[in-house]
């Protein structure tokens, strides 16, 4: 999920030597289609195309409970006992402002793009899909150096930025 396109996820995939299919969502399509405002997310889908489990926010395969859930599902087909997250509706005004900001970003008008995304973020402060992408174009050095600076992010939130 990167408004800045395939160039952002590609290095992570290459470094990990990942062999699974990676798709790029530059338009926030997944946020409105699935109904969430934060990542990382996990959705498990069975052979019939039915969603059997979903977690929006905090889905991390490095967590033992997440790994155990996925492994159990792969071997037994059961996700019994695992609590899913319900979807949430993303305000269409927020998505419109994101879309407008994205068009501006692509035309090279970063200043106006930021203004649109800032407006979207003010309208829906809990929407981290918008908020963090705003941060990432305002402060690329906090995202695209050695690692994502989460301490800086917490500091920004504490300051209401």
């Amino acid at each position, binding site marked *: 999920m990167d408004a800045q396109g*395939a160039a952002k996820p590609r290095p992570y995939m290459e470094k990990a030597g990942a062999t699974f299919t990676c798709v790029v969502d530059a338009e926030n399509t997944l946020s409105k*289609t699935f109904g*969430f405002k934060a*990542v990382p997310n*996990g959705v498990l*889908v*069975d*052979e019939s*195309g039915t*969603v059997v489990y979903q977690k929006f926010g905090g889905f991390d395969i490095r967590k033992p409970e997440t790994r155990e859930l996925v492994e159990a599902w792969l071997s037994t087909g059961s996700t019994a006992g695992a609590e899913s997250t319900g979807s949430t509706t993303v305000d269409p005004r927020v998505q419109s402002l994101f879309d407008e900001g994205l068009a501006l970003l692509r035309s090279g008008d970063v200043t106006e793009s930021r203004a649109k995304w800032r407006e979207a973020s003010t309208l829906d402060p809990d929407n981290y899909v918008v908020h963090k992408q705003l941060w990432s174009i305002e402060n690329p050095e906090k995202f695209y150096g050695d690692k994502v600076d989460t301490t800086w992010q917490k500091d920004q939130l504490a300051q209401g930025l």
Partner: protein
Amino acid sequence: MTMGSVVNELLPAATLPSLDGTAIDFASFRGKKLLIFMWASW
């Protein structure tokens, strides 16, 4: 139009480009177990 993904219902329809630009339809994984992991560089 129904928005959002719901457990015990069909996966919402979506088609997105792969890293090399090939269109990938989520429905094309039908018949296999599918784990969708959504992440970002930010």
